[in-house]
């Protein structure tokens, strides 16, 4: 099945097939691949074609376009590092402490809580990362009340988040001293996050595209909503963007995953370029838009 353009063992795909796939991925996710990543692309494409039983690129592409059995999600997962771990995309956490929080506290009374939301939070790595990052990197952390909420549609993931038990791989980006401060080893390859941190994060169930569900969440200063909107279809993305808009206070910020841009999803938000990250902002009250 392999041809001169494909790596050994790969199914038959032509350069035109690859370009067609790459354009689809780009339009759908913003992730850009080109011919110089041919081997990388072919490997993942071959895996997905094998997994779906597609005998040809054409039949696989039809499956992909119709999103049968959530194939878009499977393909995107194959093309991204979909493993979740602590301090993932830490440039956004750096942006939070170096730029966002300073602006947020300017508009608040000292007693008003700073409210941060991680949705979807999966098994808790992100909200715990936010808490640890604040403890480690924000000198003002003890001067404010900070509320961190982690939400997900998957209640099994939320139960795991509450338990706070992780394998060693989830810690791969954490400095040794941070691990020592916030984790206790409970088995050879398992650690549990500090009880104080477990008590610091509120975990709740929420569905991003359910307006009545999302109506329970209001007044957040920062929302981390990473690597989920790319999986939604056009209608769901639009609804989710409006729901997130309502969950933020005026002037609040939303951080998306590296392959997502709100400008492709909704014009409701303004773009803010900081040294460490591009984030999106709900306009301040009184601004037209």
């Amino acid at each position, binding site marked *: 099945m392999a041809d001169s353009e494909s790596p050994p063992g790969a199914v038959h795909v032509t350069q035109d097939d690859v*370009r*067609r796939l790459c354009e689809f991925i780009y339009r759908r996710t913003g992730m850009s691949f080109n011919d110089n990543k041919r081997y990388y692309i072919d490997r993942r494409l071959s895996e997905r074609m094998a997994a779906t039983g597609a005998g*040809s*690129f054409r039949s696989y592409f039809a499956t992909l376009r119709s999103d049968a059995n959530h194939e878009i999600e499977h393909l995107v997962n194959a093309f991204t590092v979909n493993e979740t771990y602590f301090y993932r995309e830490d440039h956004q956490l750096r942006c939070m402490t170096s730029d966002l929080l300073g602006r947020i506290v300017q508009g608040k009374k000292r007693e008003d809580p700073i409210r941060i939301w991680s949705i979807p939070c999966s098994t808790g790595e992100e909200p715990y990362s936010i808490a640890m990052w604040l403890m480690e990197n924000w000198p003002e952390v003890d*001067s404010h009340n900070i*509320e961190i909420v982690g939400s997900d549609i998957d209640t099994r993931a939320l139960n795991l988040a509450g338990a706070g038990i992780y394998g060693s791989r989830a810690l791969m980006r954490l400095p040794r001293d941070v691990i020592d401060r916030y984790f206790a080893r409970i088995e050879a390859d398992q650690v549990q996050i500090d009880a104080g941190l477990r008590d610091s*994060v509120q975990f709740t169930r929420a569905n991003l595209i359910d*307006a009545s569900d999302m109506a329970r969440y209001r007044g957040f200063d920062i929302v981390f909503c990473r690597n989920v909107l790319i999986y939604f279809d056009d209608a769901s993305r*639009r609804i989710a963007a409006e729901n997130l808009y309502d969950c933020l206070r005026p002037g609040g910020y939303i951080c998306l995953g590296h392959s997502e841009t709100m400008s492709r999803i*909704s014009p409701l938000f303004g773009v803010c370029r900081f040294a460490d990250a591009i984030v999106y902002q709900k306009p301040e009250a009184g601004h037209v838009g």
Partner: protein
Amino acid sequence: MPFVKRNPGAAAADKKPDSLASHFTDLGSPDEEGRWRAARALGGKVEAVSALAGALARERVPRVREAIMTALMRVGDDASILTLLPYLCSQDAGERGAAIEALQALPEAIAPFLPKLFADSDSDVRILATELARNLPAEEATRVLCALIQNEQHANVCAAAIEVLAEVGTDDAVPALQACAERFAGTAFVPFAVSITIARISKTES
């Protein structure tokens, strides 16, 4: 630790939902936040299409207009599509863009309207309509786009359709593409786009 915990939904859970009638009233509120909330609340409600259509015609605040279009998109019936279609001709690029995005999310519902859009006298509308075909099933998209390029006189409309065919087309489109390339032989970018598209859609069967 400096962290506080509270149930984020506690306050909102006690709030009684507003009635449909009050949302209809709020669509005409002088307060843009009230209009935004009303539009959001009326999303997906068939009985609200007429009121949403009226509100959309009056609305000048972009984010509220977006919310009204999303509300109509969530209904997705013929009446809501007929409300959105005229905005494809808007002189306001933001309004056109919002309408196209809302309609793109309704590929099955929009399909019966495509022949009329492809016959529109405004070439910009025909170009935008090619994007509406992108989310159709491949065979259906191929059929309607080939029908368009067989008679279309405007090179840019053909180019837009060819670009969509490059992603979604099947090799049934090849004869129509070749004929289009011949008709626009003097407009270099059309034969070029056709050659790329044919290469992509005609060699994929192993």
